[in-house]
């Protein structure tokens, strides 16, 4: 039972198999960073099983690290959208393979202005990720 408890804990967190989980671990509690985690919460009318976001400003190292993580995570994922500026991806939407009943999405954006704000979002939802994307698009 103890073994099951310890083995099940990491297994149940679906984002743990992703490289981007390292971004949240490494940068989440730093200065100049905003990290959010919401579990089983309604967010503006939408039911997310898990919502994780991280916003980092003026940190090109973090941006490069995120891009490297995304390169690995996009293997087997459906690339919904990608914007490349000067050969560097600045916006990436990934639809990941389902994990059990959960649809999973990764959204990344870097604003190429003086602030160079990077936003990385990881979403798990029981609802179709297409619907989640529609919701996000609706917000613009």
């Amino acid at each position: 039972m103890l073994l099951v408890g310890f083995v099940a804990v990491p297994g149940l967190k679906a984002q743990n198999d992703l490289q981007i989980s390292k971004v949240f671990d490494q940068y989440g509690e730093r200065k100049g960073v905003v990290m959010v985690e919401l579990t089983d919460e309604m967010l503006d009318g939408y039911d997310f099983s898990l919502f994780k976001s991280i916003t980092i400003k003026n940190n090109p190292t973090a941006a490069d690290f995120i891009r490297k993580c995304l390169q690995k995570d996009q293997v087997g994922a459906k690339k919904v959208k990608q914007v490349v500026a000067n050969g560097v991806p600045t916006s990436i939407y990934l639809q990941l393979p389902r994990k059990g009943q959960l649809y999973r999405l990764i959204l990344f954006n870097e604003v190429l202005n003086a602030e160079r704000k990077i936003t990385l979002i990881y979403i798990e939802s029981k609802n179709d990720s297409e619907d989640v994307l529609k919701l996000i698009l609706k917000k613009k």
Partner: protein
Amino acid sequence: MDNSMRIKINNRISNSEADSLIEKYYEGLTTGDEERQLKAFLSKRNLPDKYKPEQAILGYFDRKAPKKHVSLLPYIRWASVAAVVVLGLFSIQRFTADNKANYAFIDGHKVSNMHTIKSQALASLMDVSSSTNEVEEGFKSLNENESIEQQLDVFSSTEK
């Protein structure tokens, strides 16, 4: 207190008294109290050898009361099971607590106010969704460029 003292005193019998009690014992005439006195006498150490047969018969020859063997194994087994159950529940509870976490870290400071957390979450969603504008604008401008190229193609075709 008097009773216990009396019993204690009564239990102390001399060798000659013991001899007579032994005789009575063999004849089957001893009372319960007398047998207890005799047993107490025979259980003493350093008695003359002549009492050894009686000690053997009455079963008091250096015999100690058998110690009750208390095995700790079942207790250890149950304690182990209980510990495993408690730890298992603790790890599941800990996982559940972690999994149900709603929090934000702003500049390294943990925030648990739901309103702030949700507004930060929405802000990050807005950041990403605003990029969708950029994407669409990119597509739009791409389409515009394509239409310019098409228009230029029209001119180039007329030149031919």
